[in-house]
């Protein structure tokens, strides 16, 4: 009896122990939780692959160069050039933009740089993921590849214009990306051009989202026409702009200034979807103020003076706030400062007016002065102004620059870039910006970046 019991115990214990000791290896390999997907799985399904792409747009909307917040270029370069005057806290990093006293340690620079490359990383991840995908339909692959290439080119475009020679990154490999050197501006432009031309081929004419919040073929074309313009390839710039402007079934020139920035506008080529239903733009939120003195920024006196009194843009895109003794003016392109029942305004990144002005400038350079004037009159007439009186190519070009300043103010640093590419920046800015220095044309590469990757040396001149 006793022996029996013990045999049973022994059997129990031994079976338990030996079955466990022999448990197979691989025990410590675990499956993924349902809140995460492997990179491979993301690109095996259209919905998840699209979610990866859409997240890049929301990142661009919320952070970095193109955000409408005051950390984006619209505000920072507006202050840096002559569009905005700063009224905020003197210790803030924006004050250094306004005073042209940027240091390479400025925290805002870090954010611009880091979020841009994060967005580029995400685009490269989409490109690599889509290319490796075996399950995505080829139309979906083309759509996503086109969008990712478009984003990659766009961000690099703003980076090269802000920081000069910068690394053009086409891979997610952190080992190589952490040791990259700077690519010359010329090569960066070649890459941008290449990516955009590819995107134009890949993207369909129709918008993937009816509210134009994802770029189509003509969004890529529109950026391409700007890139050609900056590269002084006048014919190409003019043709690309025409390609966009000729899409009359998609785009049409509005009859009033007031609705241009509303989300139904047919003059919009590409705009950001807001984070919440009912939300309007960050631009509206940061530029509009109700009482003076302004809490942060206001339109500069210099910009205000360029508008003639009969220019409707002065009345409709600017607004004066007075406290009885003093008055200040804020940008009023976006009219909603906060949320509405349903969203009325989206942040517009690409719109027709710029294409007309690109074509006007290109045509003036190629000698098509009549065509140039026609294009120039588009924005003038909408603003209630008469046809231009310019005659010579030179006069037209001057008029175009003036028109660009008035039409595109506080939109992603157009003014600053225009002054740079036309070579007039030192001559112009020295008038209103006492601390302006010719080396200020380029912003400094963040110091921490140079410390972490010495291959990015030398720092831009003057810092």
């Amino acid at each position, binding site marked *: 009896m006793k022996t029996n*019991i*013990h045999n*049973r*115990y*022994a059997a*129990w*214990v031994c079976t*338990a*122990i030996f079955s*466990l*000791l022999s*448990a*197979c290896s691989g*025990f*410590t*390999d*675990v*499956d*993924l*939780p*349902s*809140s*995460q997907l*492997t*990179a491979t799985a*993301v690109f095996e399904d259209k919905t*998840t692959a699209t*979610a*990866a792409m*859409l*997240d890049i747009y*929301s*990142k661009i*909307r*919320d952070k970095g160069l193109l955000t409408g917040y005051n950390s984006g270029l619209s505000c920072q370069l507006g202050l840096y050039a002559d569009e905005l005057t700063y009224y905020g806290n003197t210790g803030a990093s924006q004050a250094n933009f306004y005073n042209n006293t940027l240091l390479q*340690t400025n925290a805002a620079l*870090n954010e611009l*740089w*880091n979020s841009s*490359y*994060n967005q*580029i*990383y*995400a685009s*490269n991840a989409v490109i690599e993921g889509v290319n490796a995908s075996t399950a995505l339909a080829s139309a979906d692959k083309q759509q996503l590849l086109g969008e990712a290439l478009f984003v990659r080119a766009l961000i690099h475009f703003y980076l090269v214009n802000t920081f000069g020679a910068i690394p053009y990154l086409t891979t997610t490999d*952190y080992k190589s*990306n*952490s040791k990259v050197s700077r690519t010359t501006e010329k090569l960066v432009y070649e890459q941008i051009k290449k990516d955009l031309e590819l995107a134009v081929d890949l993207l369909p004419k129709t918008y993937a*989202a009816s*509210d134009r*919040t994802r770029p189509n073929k003509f969004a890529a074309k529109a950026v391409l026409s700007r890139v050609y313009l900056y590269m002084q390839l006048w014919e190409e710039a003019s043709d690309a702009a025409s390609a966009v402007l000729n899409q009359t079934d998609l785009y049409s020139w509005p009859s009033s200034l007031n609705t241009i920035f509303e989300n139904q506008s047919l003059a919009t080529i590409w705009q*950001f*979807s807001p*984070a919440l*239903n009912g939300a309007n733009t960050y631009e509206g939120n940061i530029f509009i103020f109700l009482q003076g003195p302004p809490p942060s920024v206001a339109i500069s006196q210099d910009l205000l003076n360029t508008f003639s009194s009969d220019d409707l843009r002065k009345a409709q895109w600017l607004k004066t706030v007075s406290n009885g003794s003093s008055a200040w003016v804020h940008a009023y392109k976006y009219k909603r400062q906060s949320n509405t029942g349903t969203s009325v305004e989206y942040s517009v990144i690409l719109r027709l007016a710029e294409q007309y002005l690109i074509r006007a400038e290109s045509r003036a350079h190629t000698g098509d002065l009549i065509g140039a004037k026609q294009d120039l009159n588009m924005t003038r007439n909408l603003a209630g102004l008469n046809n231009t009186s310019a005659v010579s190519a030179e006069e037209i070009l001057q008029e175009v620059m003036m028109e660009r300043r008035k039409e595109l103010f506080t939109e992603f640093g157009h003014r600053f870039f225009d002054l740079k590419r036309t070579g007039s920046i030192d001559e112009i800015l020295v008038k209103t910006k006492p601390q302006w220095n010719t080396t200020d044309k380029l912003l400094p590469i963040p110091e921490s*970046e140079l*410390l*972490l*990757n010495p291959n*990015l040396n030398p720092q831009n001149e003057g810092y």
Partner: protein
Amino acid sequence: MNYFSFSKDGRALYCLFFAGIMLSFSSSFAGISKRHFKTILQHQIQGTVTDGTAPLPGVTIAVKGRSNNNSITDYNGQFSINVSPSDTLTVSFLGFKTINVPVEGKSKISIVLHYDTTTLQEVKINAGYYSVKEKERTGNISRITAKDIETQPVTNVLATMQGRMPGVNIIQNTGMAGSGFTVEIRGTNSLRTSANSPLYIIDGVPYSSQSIGSSYTSGNMPAQNSPLNSINPSDISSVEVLKDADATAIYGSRGANGVVLISTKKGREGKTVFSIDYSNGIGKVTRYMDVMDTPSYLAMRREAFANDGTSQYPANAYDVNGTWDQNRNTNWQKELIGGTAEYTNIQSSFSGGSEHTQFLLSGNYSKETTVFPGSFNYVRAGGHTNINHESADKRFQVSFSASYTTQFSSLPLVDFTQTALRLPPNAPALYDENGNLNWQNNTFQNPLAILNGETSGNTYDFLANTLLSYNISSGFTASGSFGYTDLDQKQMNLQPSTIYNPSYGFGTDQSQVISNLMNRSSWIIEPKLSWSKSLGNIAIDALAGSTFQQQKGDQLVTLSKGFSSNSLLRNPASATSNSILSSDENLYRYQAFFARINFNWEGRYILNFTGRRDGSSRFGPGRQFANFGAVGAAWIFSENKWMKKQLSFISFGKIRASYGTTGNDQIGDYQFLDTYSTTATKYQGLSGLQPSRLYNADFGWETNKKLELALEAGFLEDRIFTSFSLFQNRSSNQLVGIPLPGTTGFSSIQANLDAEVQNRGIEFMLRTQNIQYAGFKWTTSFNLTSIKNELLSFPRLEASTYKNQFVIGQPLNLTKVYHYTGLDPLTGTYQFEDVNKDGQITATEDKKTIKNLTPKYYGGLQNHFQYHNVELDFLFQFVKQESFNENYANPMPGTMSNQPIGVTGHWQQEGDPGPYQGYSVTNSSRTTANTRFIQSDASISDASFIRLKNISLTYELSKKWTKKVTCRLSLQGQNVLTFTKYKGIDPEFRVSGYVPPLKIYTSSIQLSF
């Protein structure tokens, strides 16, 4: 892949084993009942037991070989027992040498017991996978037992360890019921602040100390709930803390920060004992901060406005502009944190058993309220059971322990401490004459409105463990340990519209509830084979085993908004909108092989080798396994014959040393995977997917090399016993986010950084038996720890995001602050050192003064007095440290916020010494100066303290009166007295704005029969 069948369902597996145990009982019970038929010729004998002078009550008299037959001496030291003439009596009593007395046919026996001061050296210490005699251990293990735990009226087991163990620094996070503790064993090892917790093991089952709860529902505490609150201190028989390499290396990858072994109470052989313990007590905050009264406060406000040149008080300056009664004077600390918390605790247990089967059943209920207004409370109720059984030939043993604990808490949404310190002393009454909340015509944000909300939590925790062992023969024993834990928590943060000022006009559509649902379950299986053998002079102990463990967790946090009525808040289904704030799940698997071999040569030379090979799912393929090991050696020189003869006053002497490696895998799950995670931000109304991180599968274990050298010595039969340890722990291969340039798309990548952190220190312990004479006993024990923490290396620190956090050559727990240079005599504003002399004070360039917030040394002094049946026990805890003082986080003097009383010493005119700057409300240079002052060395000062942490007086009623019932009455106090120069609210804890640990007094009665 057959392991999936059991890995997926630990519960099923558990049931299977449980059923097996039941089956084995049925046969063995039969065996027991059979043996009871055996009859022996017996007679009753009587006797007395004394210590030579006085009778000893409570001495156990047992008959050798028949341990179910025993007796206990009464108050007069007398006993009677049935024996047969040839029996031998075994007489034992704690603190005395056990003796055997043959009956030899006598009917009256007088027994004299001799004090044994060396018994503590014979105690078996739990070292986890094995146990070792205190005197023969080669590693560093500190221990407290139920005796120390019982004297303390606290609800968390970690609180009972405070001040009692060298090398163990424990800080209570807040005095709010159910809050957690920060535990650091021998300093901070990891650069990641979240990775410095020790490994907790309860009866062999690892218990995750990762906080439960969610930041969304824990606004009333500085840190989220600690799961260790589930453990009822009265169910614990001992807590051992393993510290050096010799003791921790067998826990391999999880031993870097030390190991805390918690053993619960077990059933004991002998007659069935029922005991019940009831205690009741009160708690108050340890002290108030001295703040201004109304006259000084209003004088400050008026002066501030005058300084700013404001003659007309602004409309919202209700305190000075006449809106509020300027004669009211309230110390808001009394109103808001000055309540009395009530403590009730009932514990009962039922235990006993035969030689082969013992059991213990216990239940407990405790309830505590808070010091805040409103009726809030925290209730814990649970049960614990233990059953042990061994076969008749003692070769097969099984032990089963389980406990189930429920916790129900209902706590305020916020901690009122900060409001209590800042509210102007002339602020209006909280209630109007009708008993409604007073808003004083919308000029007063009534702090009590928040009482309409609540953070409620239900936590259910189940923990079970079965240990089977079989003595195979020839020194081999096979055993298996099977454990299961399951923790569920549901927290709700109820924010009804009534927590807002009614003038906002918020209806119930603005009411919202945040719910947190979490579950964490784990199982562990540990088969083990041990072997012991004596080969001539050498005794060998060896063991080998393996571990399989899985932990699964998930958490869902939801926000429900808009209710038709505030009484429906607890039902999220009645909300108009429900959204998910976070949803998370994780799976952790762990596998290991461990071994130990111990050589003991004549009890003089001991060599101990331990090792472990660990695999963890937290690492990528090829990186999952790593080896850890240690060697420990001890030389008990007092066993030397020459020593015994010539230096007989040295009763014990041991030198021991150990060296080895342990690891740390506290990095979170799935970090090595290339994944996308969902984001909360939306585009086109859809949530996005973003790359979770840069993909690096090539990171491995953090390693911690520990070196220890110690001397232990006992003098005069161990009446004086001391131990002195020197240790050095170096953590390298630190797992951190290695800083990367932004061009990589991320700022860092999870990888091993070649940074090294060192903790070097000494631990000293002294235990003396000062008096032991005729029923009077006085023992003292003292411990002291001093640790120097240092960051030895950190490649490219200056370029990394850690550059403002760490400094090479300095401890990890530092803060960089401005150096305060005094008041500007002309303007009366604070001034700071301009380190780089650029004429500006900037955070990056001028916050260069380094303040070390690590304690310089800490320890405790415990005294125990016993006179017959009265016992007095008290513990002083002391800490030498610097910490943030009353200036930290203090709003500018002059603004609408009350101030520490010391602020009356301020600048008024040129040349005034201050120390505080001139009052102001809006002066921008003073505002800036005050912001810097808070971040300067003026906000850090000495926060050393000596605290009477615990005092307990126990009286055991004479058996003359109580007969068979043992009745003990006791009075206990916690945090009773504090001696400190610190002017903040409490020096012990570090977080401002939360209620500090409370001062608690309880009285209790314990009956057992």
